[in-house]
């Protein structure tokens, strides 16, 4: 396990470096000029040149690249061209919204999807099995922003039970209010995420239910519940865990849509603003942090899978898992 962890860490750092370099190059290939965000109609050519000088976008690209990588090595993500604030602290502030949003939505989706998916497979011969499956199919097809707007219309505008958007300026100093403003966004994401999870859980359960090992366990005298608990769930969870990892990462990245609908000051809205303003340090910072998060989630899912399934551990000497 020690060698495995070491190798995974090296792989992670290499991926991060590659992503950072790609990001830098791709951003510079886009048309547009970051100094445009700083000037207004009426700016003279001298003012435009001064704006470029101020933010350093007039420097040669290799020089800009070296200073960006150098900063990254010191965990310094630089300063925003536009807001003049350190990108690191801006991202940290945004993570205090996006991370709870993602994790709560994820937890809720898993709590819904596991029993429902299992039920849909186990009771596929009853009327509600196919119904649950059908509802899940439908859920996958519905765009997340539409669900968000629907919830706003019903619970905020019509019933006046919950805020239509925004995040309290006291942040988490008032946990009650912070949670209240995250409730609708969390439910929005969880609805969509659980719809796709239900389908995975269902198909993994269907596989296990028809498996030889489960029949053998029953034949050896175990009850259905016992056999399912000792053998079924463990086997079904291996594919589900890797899907969970992917779903968690997707949610983290996809939070941008929900953050926009609910005007949440999260990482996604920071990224959108950064892109609109060609604020390279902000875009690079957000994407590097997101890349790191996705890599870490993949890493964690991998480790959990190994803990659950001894067969994966046995292969550790061989090729990449």
């Amino acid at each position: 396990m020690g060698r495995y962890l070491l190798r995974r860490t090296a792989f992670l750092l290499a991926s991060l470096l590659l992503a950072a370099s790609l990001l830098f190059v791709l951003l510079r290939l886009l048309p547009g000029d970051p100094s445009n965000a700083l000037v207004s109609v009426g700016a003279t050519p001298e003012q435009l040149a001064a704006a470029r000088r101020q933010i350093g976008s007039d420097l040669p690209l290799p020089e800009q690249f070296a200073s960006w990588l150098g900063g990254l090595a010191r965990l310094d993500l630089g300063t925003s061209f536009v807001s003049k604030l350190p990108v690191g602290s801006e991202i940290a502030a945004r993570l205090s919204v996006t991370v709870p949003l993602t994790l709560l939505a994820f937890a809720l989706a898993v709590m819904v999807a596991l029993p429902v998916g299992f039920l849909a497979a186990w009771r596929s011969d009853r009327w509600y099995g196919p119904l649950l499956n059908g509802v899940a199919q439908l859920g996958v097809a519905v765009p997340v922003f539409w669900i968000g707007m629907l919830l706003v219309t019903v619970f905020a505008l019509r019933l006046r039970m919950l805020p239509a958007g925004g995040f309290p300026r006291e942040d988490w100093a008032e946990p009650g209010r912070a949670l209240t403003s995250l409730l609708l966004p969390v439910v929005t994401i969880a609805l969509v995420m659980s719809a796709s999870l239900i389908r995975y859980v269902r198909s993994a359960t269907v596989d296990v239910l028809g498996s030889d090992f489960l029949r053998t366990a029953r034949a050896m005298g175990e009850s259905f519940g016992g056999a399912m608990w000792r053998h079924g769930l463990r086997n079904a969870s291996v594919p589900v865990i890797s899907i969970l990892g992917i779903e968690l990462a997707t949610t983290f990245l996809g939070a941008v849509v929900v953050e926009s609908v609910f005007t949440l000051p999260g990482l996604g809205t920071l990224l959108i603003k950064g892109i609109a303003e060609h604020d390279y340090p902000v875009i690079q910072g957000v994407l590097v942090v997101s890349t790191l998060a996705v890599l870490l989630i993949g890493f964690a899912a991998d480790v959990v899978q190994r803990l659950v399934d001894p067969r994966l551990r046995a292969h550790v000497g061989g090729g990449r898992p």
Partner: protein
Amino acid sequence: MNSKLAGVVAALVLALAACGSGQEGPAGGGTATPDASAVIEIGSLYEPQNLDNTAGGGQGVTEAFNGNVYEGLFRLTDAGKVDNLLAKGYEVADDGLTYTFELREGVKFHSGKALTPADVKHSIERVTAEDSQSARKSSLEAIESVETPDDGTVVVKLAHRSVSLVYNLTYVWIVNADAEDLATAEDGTGPYELGAWKRGSTLSLDRFPGYWGTPPANNGVVFHYFTDATALNNALLTNAVDIVTSQQSPDALAQFTGNPDYKVSEGHSTTKLLLAFNDRKAPFDKPLVRKAVSSAIDDAKLLESIWAGHGSLIGSMVPPTDPWYEDLTKVNPYDVELAKRQLAEAGYAKGFRFTLDTPNYDPHPTAAAFIKSELAKVGITVDINVITADEWYSKVYKNHDFAATLQEHVNDRDVVWYGDPGFYWGYDDKQVSEWIKDAERAKTPEEQTELLKKANRRIAEDAAGDWLYLYPQIVVAASNVSGYPVNGLNSQFYAYGIKKS
């Protein structure tokens, strides 16, 4: 996605409003007494980019900070009048080249330091500095030097007369010369000091206890920033905000007008929607072609379809709040037959084809589609090219690589750009440039007004651009809120008079 999304939500919201909700709306105004301990929650679409108006802070920082956090030597009131503020008064030498400003006593910065003439000198010089990004830099180009002869006086020397100097000084924030960081912090003399700025969300202003003047009528304000008008209106509907600084969603107005819980005020705006031609290049180098295009477009119908009865037609670059305003809508009237005759006379009887660079945000795409269908009636084919704001700056503004474009121009007194042949639209008329130059060097405001009227008339007759309409400035507030500015001239929003009961 945004506009579609907005449309859907607006439709849903309208349907619900029709069902008759709003029972929990704010209490009816008028009867209750103002509450000086109330904090006013303000909703806005314009978040500052940073906190420095000489370093790209943008429209948002003007809205939040002008008059609230920072003060100038003079104040442009919501009614458009220039009042003394940090200056108690001033004198002008007979040659018009020396202005002596007497400073108000007892003024303190938020950091506690007393205001000195050195701060004023520093503040003016940071706007005129070489690396200044201030949009007002060029309007102060006449300033040659700023001197501080004693503790209470500032003397400004000019290279030539500048009749608008005092007016232009209303935009110059007086900052503490010792302040180190004005992009993420502030040090002004205004009635409020910055509480906290949570980027992407809120900016709060707290009462400044050491303020020299009348303390604010409220206990502070919080600006809540939104990126889309629908979310902003939802916040107003759910009482998350008390007031919206500038309503930009005409479709959403219906849910507030006629609702006793809200008050809708229409004031004067300075924002004009322009169809700007590249006057350097064929076919728009011919005034006759530009006139024909102007006459072929029914501006009244466009305004009606976008703003449903709000806003106005002005027929030139000059809004009614500028002293040299004249109704010039008759200069190039809507007349399709006239347009056809003019096109034929200019040698384009069969019409022509051009690309219209259209910023991707409202109302430009809607206006572009309308213009396309109007011009088709006189044989002109329009190719709509939708671009981002950033592309617009690079392609149109800097490189002048365009045939025609749509753009909103927000400032007052900006007809003077037609005097600069290097400006993006490339209008070049020696006489107009001279009039505009002489107007700023005029001895009296009357003389200035006369010259700018002449220039504006000539610009309109040449159809240097097509001024489609003047935006409305609409403030929507809960009806228990009063004392707010309704004109928002140049994006200012004085918050100190707002009361909530």
